[in-house]
């Protein structure tokens, strides 16, 4: 099915091209369609365009081409609604957790959506409990381990109750135990998930479908097993 013809898709990208200010191409003619409830792994070497692609999903970056999230344009008038629908987990939780306490961070998103302070507080508590951080609300992110910070960042996104979750290198900087704990946690979330990572083992465990990027272009798109078992393909694309 061609670009923008699939009405079932929650996410539709057609010919997305993005250039850095210095003129280099970060994304070059990317086409991608994701259906409701799908978990898609976006893999590729460093600099392949994974993070740039994710930052287009909620209109933080705007390239050339067409993007539709739940039928809305993330770069246009629907930007606020798109940001409420797409939760992006950044690679480094220290970039994402900017409030003095974890609770305030988890409340930040819901309050921006216009919910009442009491409702934002209860959503924050609920999402913290969901990621196993009940009772951590008063903690400062600076005093938490990398795994705890990652889960707190995830809670901050879940408190917004997004329909799509986009995760940028979710297992980066985690020790083996924290990484093991993260996999079932991510697997337990419903909704549509997009996991950008070069942790192929994590992608194999979480994703049914994989998109392989190289130099900003989609090199392969298909069932996870078929792509992840193709050692020659992975090797040729820096993985």
């Amino acid at each position: 099915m061609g670009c923008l013809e699939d009405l079932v898709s929650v996410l539709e990208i057609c010919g997305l091209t993005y250039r850095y200010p210095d003129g280099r191409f970060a994304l070059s003619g990317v086409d991608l369609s994701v259906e409701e409830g799908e978990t898609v792994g976006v893999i590729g070497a460093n600099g392949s365009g994974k993070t740039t692609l994710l930052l287009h999903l909620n209109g933080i970056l705007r390239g050339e081409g067409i993007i539709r999230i739940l039928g809305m344009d993330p770069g246009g008038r629907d930007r606020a609604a798109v940001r409420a629908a797409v939760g992006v987990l950044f690679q480094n939780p220290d970039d994402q957790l900017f409030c003095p306490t974890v609770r305030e961070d988890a409340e930040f998103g819901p309050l921006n959506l216009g919910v009442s302070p009491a409702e934002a507080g209860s959503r924050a508590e609920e999402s913290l409990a969901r990621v196993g951080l009940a009772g951590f609300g008063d903690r400062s992110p600076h005093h938490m381990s990398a795994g705890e910070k990652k889960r707190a960042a995830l809670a901050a996104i879940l408190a917004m109750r997004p329909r799509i979750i986009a995760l940028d290198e979710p297992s980066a900087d985690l020790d083996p135990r924290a990484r093991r704990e993260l996999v079932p946690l991510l697997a337990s979330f419903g909704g549509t998930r997009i996991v950008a990572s070069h942790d192929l083992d994590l992608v194999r465990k979480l994703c049914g479908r994989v998109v392989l990027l190289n130099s900003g272009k989609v090199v392969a798109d298909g069932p996870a097993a078929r792509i992840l078992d193709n050692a020659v393909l992975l090797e040729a694309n820096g993985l």
Partner: protein
Amino acid sequence: MRHDFVDRFARVPSPVAGIDPRTRLVAALTVLLTVVGAPASRPGMLAVCAGFIAGYAALARVPAGWLVARSAVALPFALLAGAWLPFARPGVGGWAALAVLAARTFLAAAVIVLLAATTRFPHLLRGMEGLGLPRVMSLVLSFTYRFLFVLVEEAERLEMAVRSRAPMRRRRFRALTGAAGYLFLRTYERAERVYQAMLARGFHGEIPVGEIPRWGVQDALAVAVTAGFLWVAWRIW
């Protein structure tokens, strides 16, 4: 890196743990003004204030040795500033004035250290806002508190990298100046990423405010006790 006294005893269960940050701020400010404003001829006022500070520290379960050591940090400055007093006023008067100056400095430092150590920093900011501090100022302080240590850790990592590859002191200095520029660049990039993370969660130019705490019985009690001590200090001593 961890800070040494900010928040240090704020999570210790104690009879003063639940006092509203606004009450703490007002009480600390009034005690501070009493300490600073106590005339040199009435050292008894300082003694009453010292009693109040010691009582609060004991209730908040702050070890006396810890408090004395942190508060004494300010003493060298006071002694330096008042070193001329014994010469300007020969006899006991000059030394007494120097002692009062040192006591004032020590007690004022103790008030600040206690406030910072027993009140959680985010609550302190909330309290300041509640007392009229502009939101933009409290946000600047909040971001500073959140990212100061992240930045210091980044600087420490850069310094370690420079040391490990530049054992000669002269070369190390040159490399460190370059690292300072690099640190600025990293900080700028981090600021960009933090802003992107804020946008991703619906930020549209205004920082929303969560639930504001309310004054309770404990606060009324704290105000009464503080006012009682200050009354004794000003009227009786």
